[in-house]
């Protein structure tokens, strides 16, 4: 271990940041230790969550909200929601758990803020693209049916190639722009659009075969 690491309170044998000594080098705790802190109701875990998943949550919120203040608030709310949810929840993948919370909070805020206005932003594009997968404006009320649809969507995702799946999830779950996805894969935006277009069509077709009219 690096001897330069400042002595700080320790959790599970690891050293983590002391808020009063922000210049100290820090060892990132693993998820089980962070969850352990949450179960112990150790408030310092918020700093740990921020340090480990701050940029991750920020990027998700920012993809949706495109506003610094809203993004910051949303990420802070994510920490609080995580604090409130664990326990009793004990997620296997903390990143995905927090990512989903961020996404839900961000989209709630987005809907609230955009209830009276329409702009040409990327979220509208995402909704518009997903329009191609659905057939009508009726609502899926039944939780059971919703669960079944989710299971079918997961099965569908499992059938995709890794690359197509990452593109699809990046676009419709993380709400990344086509531009950013293209940049990640080192391909042209048009190729991403074509891939997404095909995957949407495949999803619609797959769900139809599975007996779900989205």
């Amino acid at each position, binding site marked *: 271990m690096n001897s330069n690491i400042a002595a700080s309170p320790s959790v599970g044998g690891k050293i983590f940041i002391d808020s009063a000594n922000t210049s100290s080098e820090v*060892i990132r705790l693993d998820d089980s230790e962070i969850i352990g802190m949450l179960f112990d109701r150790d408030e310092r875990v918020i700093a740990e969550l921020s340090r480990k998943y701050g940029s991750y949550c920020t990027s998700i919120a*920012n993809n949706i909200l495109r506003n*610094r203040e809203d993004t910051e608030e949303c990420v802070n709310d994510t920490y609080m929601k995580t604090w409130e949810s664990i326990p009793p929840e004990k997620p296997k993948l903390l990143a*995905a758990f927090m990512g989903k919370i961020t996404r839900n909070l961000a989209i709630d805020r987005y809907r609230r803020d955009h209830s009276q206005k329409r702009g040409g*932003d990327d979220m509208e594009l995402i909704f518009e693209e997903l329009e191609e997968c659905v057939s009508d404006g009726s609502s899926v009320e039944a939780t059971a049916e919703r669960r079944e649809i989710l299971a079918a969507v997961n099965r569908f995702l499992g059938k995709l190639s890794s690359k197509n799946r990452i593109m699809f999830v*990046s676009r419709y779950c993380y709400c990344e722009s086509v531009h950013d996805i*293209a*940049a990640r894969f080192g391909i042209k935006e048009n190729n991403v659009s074509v891939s997404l277009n095909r995957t949407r069509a495949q999803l619609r077709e797959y769900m139809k075969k599975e007996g779900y009219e*989205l």
Partner: protein
Amino acid sequence: MRSSELFDILGEIDDKYFEEAKQPDVQHGELIVAESSPFRSFMSIFAPIAACAAIIVAVVIGANFVSKNAGLVGPNDSDSSSDITLSSDSSTVSETESSVSSTESSSDSSAPMIDDNKIRLEDYPPIVLDTVPDLKGSGLETQMSQQDKLLKKATLATLKCGEYELYMLGRDIHIDKSDDPLCLYSYYMELAVVKDGEVISSDGPHTFSVSMHQGGYQLAPFDLPNYLEYYELNGGNLVVFKYHEPGQDELWDYECTFFTIADDGELRLLMGDSSGIGGDSIGLAAYLHEGYTVDSINNTLTDGDFIYKFNCENFGLNPYDAVHFTAEMNLDLSKYPMLDMEQVPDIAEITDWEQCLSKATLAEKQVGYYTLSLIGEKIRSPKQVDPNIILVENVRTVVSHSGKIVYIDESSSLESDINYFDDEFMTAYEMNYGVVFKLPNSSTGEECFGLVKGDQMIKFDGDLTATYGVDPPAEYDEHAEPIVIAEENALILYNALKYTFDFSTSSFIASYTGAEPLILAEYSTYDKNRTDYQNKAILEEKDSAGYKFYLLGQNAKNSLDNYDEMRGTTFSVCSFTKLIVAVEKDGRLIANTDVYNPNTGHDVEMIGQLLRPFEMKDGIGFVLYWNLETSGGNPYAAIYKLENNTITQLKYEMDFAPAPATGSPFIIEPDYTVDAENNTIVYKPYDGEEVTLTLDFANNMFSMS
């Protein structure tokens, strides 16, 4: 299901898929985004704006020869230097750094991750090109699959900036000699302000083409020092990050972002107003050409006909309230006199650019209210070969009205006969209500049309939904001449794709249309007992409001005696490849339109009930069912209006934001009633309360209550 519900469901997918698609910087355990940077999110906020601005700004000319008079300084004229020698025999950056250990503990994947967002220069030794890993590939795939082989961190360039030094830092670096030995890949980059060996502040380069640090930068390895420039201004300073990918044939030389270094060493991104050159009111990227000059007294950067004025007093302020720079057009059309061939030198008699005719207007034409001027520079002619041929650089169309320039298109080089300049103008279509300009393709590759509003060129918002998922018709011909239907404000491209423009809303709708007229006589009554192809069948024929409505099917084919396992009965299905609704009045065909229907197999028994014309107080139209089944199922339908011999699909404005209005099919129970006086369609779902659809004929919309 609503698209928003599908979106919500996608938010609940299996964690492993969520995990898989995480950004690689998080996957590999390193924080990239310094959340404390107040300007970082501006990048993403204004990325779309910057994209638009990029198109408009990317019109400036190439080489400029602006003399360096007093007060004009060229790039790096200040005390600037790069301490890095990009060869294998040099590895020193500075005394400060060379004395520091180059231990890369943080890049050792097996070691605990040290992560406090601090940049330590000792982790970034100066790059030595000969030691950069040679790995095949680029982008995310290389980043993920060869993570352990990449050069983790290196200093790519440094520049003296007053009392500070600016470092260009790269991470996850490699080169792919098999593809291009003159392209250095750095997956991440950071600019850091350094004083006395300590990083004071840092920020990403904010390039638009490689946004948010993701995706990988492509750099010219032997030109790294030239990515940074520093200028002392009158009341401030200016850092220019000049990004250019080797081998890319762009219309500009550099995609630039501007920064300033505050007194306390903070690196601040500058954001500016480009509306003066037809761009947006705030943006990041400036696309500059080699040879631009900076006037450090007047705080301007001049690039050909564009001039960027820096407001040093605003540098520390929120750009929403006080922009950091403004971009203005510096083009003076009076400096482009009409072409006089006698002034054009013979190419055989000149030896350098200076001897060419410097500037001229090659041609002018009027399109609607607008004057289109074709201008060019460095004009010469191979007169001894053909005196009518000229060669011109920086040829552009300038759109102006009432003497005010509203748009300049991309520049290009030209070799043309002076009698055929018409082909070189930017494409413009004159319609009844205005002029549609064809702008350079957007990044999506789709057609991009513009109109002038408020002395600015803006893009038409396009609705291409009617063409999504639809195979282009046989008439589609990429080489077909455009057809302008001015009275309809419409344009037909490729003989099949019809754009109808709405100048009031700056929007268009697009649909495929058959170029050949529909001939009803070629269609025969549908025979549900036939099992061979009926190429052109009249599926339904209805009378309403003095009109005769036809539902026509092409390549109709019946499949009889399909077995329904659920009900234990047989049923017949009619399939077809194309559906058309045609309307006849007084025996004359007045309108027809292709109708998109993904459901290509129909219950034969329900044919006859799909097309349902109506007449209401404010208009006439029809409901067209996408599917009706004797066994039940959701009866999806779309609603159309007929007005001025044109069939238009009405859109439904979702009652939740932000979904846009959609022409997607809607469940309309088949036993609906029409309330003509109130322009409504009323029905009761099998499990819900009565639904009223109110049609708004004027706005092509309908709403539900």
